[in-house]
């Protein structure tokens, strides 16, 4: 049982999703929703043993599974869990469950397929976090695009086709170059195992090319400026659940992959490109935050804010010092909760008003006091208020940047001002002020389901904000080892 615990975590949601696809025809929407909800909860429950049995004092990969898969290319079915992947796996299964839980509010056609897509997507994303074989990882990474492509394309907004094809092509462009890099490494090492890639000596030139190939794949996913243009489109057109998964988990896949692949495999290439990477991260933080301020569509505003926050993650990671690394990682998890909460909130408003234009709102707090309080909390967390998880990550990254150079830290810290500007101005224009129109006066406050989702995310945001050791205890050992690996020259 324990030896297959990772396979179970990956394949249970996928199998349940396929099962739901098959049986949904004969069932009523209500039954499908209940069943999907149970399935989602099961998929979440089976990841809890990972957390319970995880040994925080051990830095290597745990619960490993190895069996030959494609012998001709010595590709293995190799899974493993370490401190860097565990929190992300938990985040994935938890957020997926919440998305399914709240799905019946906004989706009124083919609910079964909608839920099934999320279940399959969640299994594939967990697969990406657990795979230790480059091709296994690549298969999960690409296969994940298919459910998301359909989610945006079938249940999305008016311009969904453009958005979903753009999303697919951008991601595939990057990942195909990554595939070339993998095959190149295979021809050098004779294996697709990530662990073998770590120890391979490579010339500086090769490392630079490899890093650029990986960068193309992961920077699109994160997304880093200037490859970010697909994200606002995808977010605006995606259904609420799609936006939540995109922001909370899919973007993290890029950052995770930087830690898992690009940085330890090509450390010297990374060192050479470090100034440019930091510059790109700073542009994302400052410029994209400014772009976010002028948005008139709420979802677009949050999408740009996501890009800006992911800039913080990459800045922290590329600092290559423990503070920055830790900060970047916490920022990833914290952004997972906060962005999910913000997209859920916009979903709540959109389901009632069917508009996302900021100018159509005003004084929502008068008719939805509960919702208003939650929204203010999450907006504050988004702008990095102490006590919330948003603060911890940003603070650590700025400290890490300070060790490197004062001006980098200064530019990064500007986000505390810009972030507060767009978040709080959004709150001022939508939640507070006079009641704009009759529709707002007639709004109904959160129902039980929505309240549950909001409060769960609020509790997590505050817990991590007050006690970040919850995350750092898990990641500590693995990130120390990983940083050592990254700081070692491989020439």
């Amino acid at each position: 049982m324990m030896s297959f615990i990772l396979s179970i975590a990956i394949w249970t949601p996928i199998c349940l999703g396929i099962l739901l696809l098959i049986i949904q025809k004969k069932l009523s929407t209500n039954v499908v929703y209940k069943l999907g909800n149970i399935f989602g909860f099961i998929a979440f429950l089976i990841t809890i043993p990972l957390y319970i049995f995880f040994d925080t004092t051990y830095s290597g990969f745990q619960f490993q599974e190895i069996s030959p898969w494609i012998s001709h290319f010595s590709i293995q079915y190799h899974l493993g869990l370490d401190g860097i992947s565990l929190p992300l796996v938990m985040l994935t299964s938890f957020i997926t469950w919440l998305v399914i839980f709240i799905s019946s509010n906004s989706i009124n056609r083919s609910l079964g397929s909608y839920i099934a897509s999320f279940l399959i997507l969640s299994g594939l994303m967990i697969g990406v976090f657990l795979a230790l074989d480059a091709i296994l990882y690549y298969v999960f990474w690409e296969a994940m695009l298919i459910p998301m492509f359909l989610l945006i394309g079938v249940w999305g907004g008016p311009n969904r086709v453009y958005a979903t094809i753009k999303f697919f092509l951008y991601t595939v462009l990057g990942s195909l170059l990554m595939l070339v890099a993998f095959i190149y490494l295979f021809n050098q090492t004779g294996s697709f195992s990530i662990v073998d890639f770590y120890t391979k000596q490579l010339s500086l030139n090769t490392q630079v090319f490899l890093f650029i190939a990986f960068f193309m794949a992961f920077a699109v996913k994160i997304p880093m400026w200037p490859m970010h243009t697909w994200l606002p489109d995808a977010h605006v057109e995606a259904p609420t659940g799609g936006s939540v998964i995109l922001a909370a988990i899919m973007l993290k896949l890029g950052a995770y992959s930087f830690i898992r692949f690009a940085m330890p495999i090509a450390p010297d290439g990374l060192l050479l490109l470090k100034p440019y990477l930091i510059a790109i991260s700073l542009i994302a933080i400052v410029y994209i935050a400014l772009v976010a301020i002028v948005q008139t569509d709420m979802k677009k505003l949050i999408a740009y804010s996501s890009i800006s926050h992911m800039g913080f993650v990459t800045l922290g990671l590329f600092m290559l010092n423990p503070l920055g690394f830790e900060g970047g990682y916490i920022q990833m998890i914290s952004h997972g909760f906060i962005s999910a909460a913000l997209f859920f909130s916009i979903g709540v408003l959109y389901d009632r008003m069917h508009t996302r234009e900021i100018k159509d709102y005003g004084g929502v707090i008068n008719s939805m006091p509960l919702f208003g309080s939650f929204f203010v909390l999450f907006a504050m967390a988004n702008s990095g208020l102490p006590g919330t998880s948003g603060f911890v990550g940003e603070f650590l990254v700025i400290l890490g940047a300070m060790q490197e150079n004062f001006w980098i830290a200064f530019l990064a810290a500007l986000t505390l001002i810009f972030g507060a500007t767009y978040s709080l101005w959004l709150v001022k224009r939508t939640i507070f002020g006079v009641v704009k129109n009759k529709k707002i006066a007639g709004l109904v406050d959160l129902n039980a389901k929505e309240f549950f989702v909001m409060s769960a995310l609020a509790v997590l945001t505050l817990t991590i904000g007050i006690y970040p050791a919850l995350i750092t205890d898990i990641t500590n050992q693995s990130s120390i080892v990983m940083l050592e690996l990254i700081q070692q020259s491989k020439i």
Partner: protein
Amino acid sequence: MLTNILTVALPEIIILISAMSVLLLGVFFKNKNASSLFGITQLALLIAAYFTSQLPIESKLLAFNDMFVADSLSLYLKLLSYFGLSLVLIYSRDYLLKKNLLNGEFFSLVLFALLGINLIISSYHLLTLYMGIELLSLSLYTLVAIDRKRKEATEAAMKYFILGAVASGFLLYGFSMLYGITGSLYLSKISEQIGVTEINPMILSFALVFVTVGIAFKFGAAPFQLWVPDVYQGSSTPITMFIGSVPKFASVAMLIRLLYQTLDHLVMDWQLMLLVMAITSMLLGNITAIAQTKIKRLLAYSTISHVGFMLLGLATGTITGISAALFYIATYVLMTLASFGLIIRLSNQRGDIDKISDLSGLVKDQPWVAFLLLIIFLSLAGIPPTIGFYAKFSIIQATLQFGWIWPAVIAVISALIGIYYYLRMIKIAYFDDTIKATKTSKSVNNELNLTLTMNVLALIVLGLFPSTLMDIATLTSALIF
């Protein structure tokens, strides 16, 4: 002597006998009773497959004065050809019956084409090879024109015939030069002669270029691809399915026999030609496909790009390259059959599907068929976990192993362009609203439905466990030399 011929060439003899008997029996079994002809043909394929599989894979058996060979390559490609043709017949049965085309002539022509394919695959002598090519080509020209009341079919057949004759001429010209400079028509002897004797490089290079051009034409590789879209569009769908699938095995065999086994000393010379053709085919096929509005034309350009991928693997001149190409051709044929099978299935149900937009909103009235379409086109695009991914993967691996980084990057970019129009097909089936009011009253043959489903599921199952097929392809290519 006779026993030798009987063991080595028994499958071909069986095919020849059944081809002629089907033609005779066709006089008595008219349209309505054509299912017995169908049964006979399938049985013949089964028996031929049985006897082919009895041949040893490790050794090279020769017959007919060493003009005919049975080795690992012929075993692999012949078995795939029988399988492919069998699927073609199952898919096309209902469609042809409705058009009054299911008769003795059809089955006989298809079997003669198969005989030609087998001859090409097994040829060890330039005359055998040429005979196979002509047998295959003449059968195909006639098959294209078999629906003689349609003007487009006749036009396509004419175009195919004229261009095909020119290509055969090129090949024959090249062959005659090879004969002139080496004094032999045996592939192995030509190779030996080129290796040992001083030969006028001018004549040799002319011979090489003519032979390569001939192969490229039969393959449908750019810049000799002009016939492909017109023939695909003009023929009736089952014929297009046949032309697009099984004869490609013969093209691969022809290339390996002529370039790897005959002109192997000139590898440096033909390598560059193949590389250029591979890159042009991949880019031209994929870019032109974007602008297509007809399904069959789109699939024609997609074929050209797939041919480019195969040529890229074959251009490396290594065993890894051959093994990747052999794997690719098997998966390509499986995907092509599935895609045309799907078109035929829908055509049987709602009348001929011609434009891409005829598929719009498919998911709303037939979610299962739309799902099959999704898998087929993802596989053609090379997205994991479908088999199409491993096909492209092994080609790119072979290319990089040979040290060609830029060709690999170009292959990847052209694959990306390909993904765009494959996605557009999925988009039309899944996201668009239904344009044409569909009448799905006509029920579809269960046999066809089942075969199509199995065919598409094979794309996923092989995608999850590609190991076996890969090992077979590797073994085959390792045993060729």
